[in-house]
């Protein structure tokens, strides 16, 4: 299965109240690839993802799914093509894993219809693909953080969407579970051709797992392309305001960002801090 669905933002402006967060942004998600949006805290990357998932209405501009504006499409129809895993989803107290994953079938079900054989088959496959099948009858609140995240991904899989958006799917997970989740998403992308778009904090994991990177700063895309081309010392300075050494990752060959802080830096010594344009040396304005 190769996806032909397209997701595109056109002249998108997003604001919270009067404060614009993203201004006049154009962007096209490469179909069938893994796209990662990176940027500093508060740069608007999560806001952008929320708009792509129709959780936030644009102030101006629009998000287009297969060429049609999201707000013109019935939300249930969108939900059959476009899935989302929010940053911290809440599970109802005591719900069994299989029942939670079954909620993913909602966009495919009629209002009062019972579960079809296909619903069961899809849920079973989603549990198997995420390695959570043996947890099926356990309550979600008894699971560990890593297991729980896999269950949420299983729910998104049960939704059977060709595009899956994830807002920081590795937050609150230890390093082995982070790798586990990202490997799982890569499997999904390779096996089913699912278009994956996610926000990640860890620039090195982004560089390793992304086919395509959007670097966002101040609500604008400042760089877009394959990680090997985009992630450079200049970009890191530009986007994160951080001085860093970028070397090839000995494991994956992707760019590896090694930050130079003010401490624990071996020779050659760190270059001096860039002079600030305003302010006298003694600190008085």
């Amino acid at each position, binding site marked *: 299965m190769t996806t032909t669905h397209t997701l595109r933002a056109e002249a998108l402006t997003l604001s919270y109240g009067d404060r614009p967060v993203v201004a006049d942004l154009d962007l096209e998600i490469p179909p069938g690839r893994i796209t990662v949006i990176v940027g500093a805290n508060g740069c608007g990357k999560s806001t952008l993802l929320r708009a792509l998932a129709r959780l936030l209405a644009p102030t101006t501009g629009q998000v287009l799914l297969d060429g049609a504006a999201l707000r013109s499409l019935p939300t249930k129809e969108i939900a059959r093509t476009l899935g989302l895993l929010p940053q911290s989803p809440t599970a*109802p107290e005591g719900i069994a894993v*299989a029942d*939670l994953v079954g909620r993913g079938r909602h966009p495919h079900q009629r*209002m009062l219809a019972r579960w079809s054989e296909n619903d069961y088959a899809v849920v079973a496959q989603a549990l198997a693909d995420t390695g959570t099948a043996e947890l099926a009858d356990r309550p979600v609140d008894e699971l560990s953080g890593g297991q729980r995240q896999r269950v949420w991904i299983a729910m998104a899989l049960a939704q059977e969407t060709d595009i899956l958006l994830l807002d920081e799917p590795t937050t609150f997970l230890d390093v082995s579970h982070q790798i586990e989740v990202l490997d799982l998403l890569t499997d999904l992308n390779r096996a089913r051709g699912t278009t994956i778009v996610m926000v990640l904090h860890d620039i090195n994991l982004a560089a390793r797992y992304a086919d395509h990177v959007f670097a966002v700063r101040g609500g604008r895309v400042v760089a877009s392309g394959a990680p090997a081309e985009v992630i450079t010392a200049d970009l890191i300075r530009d986007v994160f305001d951080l001085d860093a050494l970028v070397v090839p990752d000995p494991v994956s060959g992707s760019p590896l960002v090694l930050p130079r802080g003010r401490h624990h830096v071996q020779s050659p010594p760190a270059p001096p801090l860039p002079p600030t344009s305003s302010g006298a040396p003694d600190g008085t304005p």
Partner: protein
Amino acid sequence: MSVVQIAVGRRRRQRRRALITGILALLVVAVYAASLMIGQTFYSPTEVWAVMLGQTVPGASFTVGELRLPRATLGLLAGLAFGMAGTTFQTMLRNPLASPDIIGITSGASAAAVFGIIVLSLNETAVSMLALGGALLTATAIYLLSHRGGFTGTRLILIGIGVAAMLDSAITYVLSRAAAWDLQTAMQWLTGSLNGATWGTVAPLALACLVAVPAMLVQGRALGVLRLGDDSATALGVRVGPTRIVLIVGAVVLLAFATAAAGPIAFVAFMAGPIAARLVGPGASPLLPAALVGAALVLAADLIGQFAFDTRYPVGVVTGVLGAPYLVYLLIRTNRSGGSL
């Protein structure tokens, strides 16, 4: 784990829910029947049945047909309405404290009714209409007050508790100025009672149930998805705004009409949902089981209030005695688990 095993697990949970919902329905029918048979004179099921079919049975036609039947029906419908409305609020706000009798909506109805009785000296129908208006107005006010710059359940609960306290003090003030003969009527609006129920009191509530209950039950699955949070629900294709409005308006209508007919029967809305959830387990729509638990609670509490003691107590006193310890238990448990509101 195979498809078959998952289906088996899911069907087992579903069967359990269906079975328990069925038992609850039978229980409601049983208590309803008992309310028709038991009284100063006992009438057999055959006699009661004959009256319900419209035949004339000496004695029973009046006692059962004119006194017990409206009373039991009012208890049944008010219980259904309180149970369903309460669990809707609790589920949607993901908090058992978010029951309409805690967050001031029933206080709104009571305050309006007491004001109508004592200050305006209105008749029964007008008082009911006023109570309805009070509930709707309070619900709207709480919603608007807590909606500024985003919507959070906790803020709504805290504002609701504050509004409830204000309204309760207004009630106390009005009562302190009341004439003795008005107090009797006004007290019904503070505890809730099925006394003096006629078909005239039952009819508006029955109509409200007929409209609101099906509209809300249809949203049951969407409510189940809403429990995952607004973002997930939207992502799963639920129209969060319209669904929430249907459920809130439905719940407020049920609550307002039930309060207008029977007074704020204490803690039924608050207890029914959690009891139902404990019985049928999580993951299912709590609406129908909670409605049944509510009905069973009101009918059983009314039987106890009427016949278990030397003095007859209004139903709200009995449910209050049951509900207050549960509220304390809930607060202690929330505290223990380190949670906030």
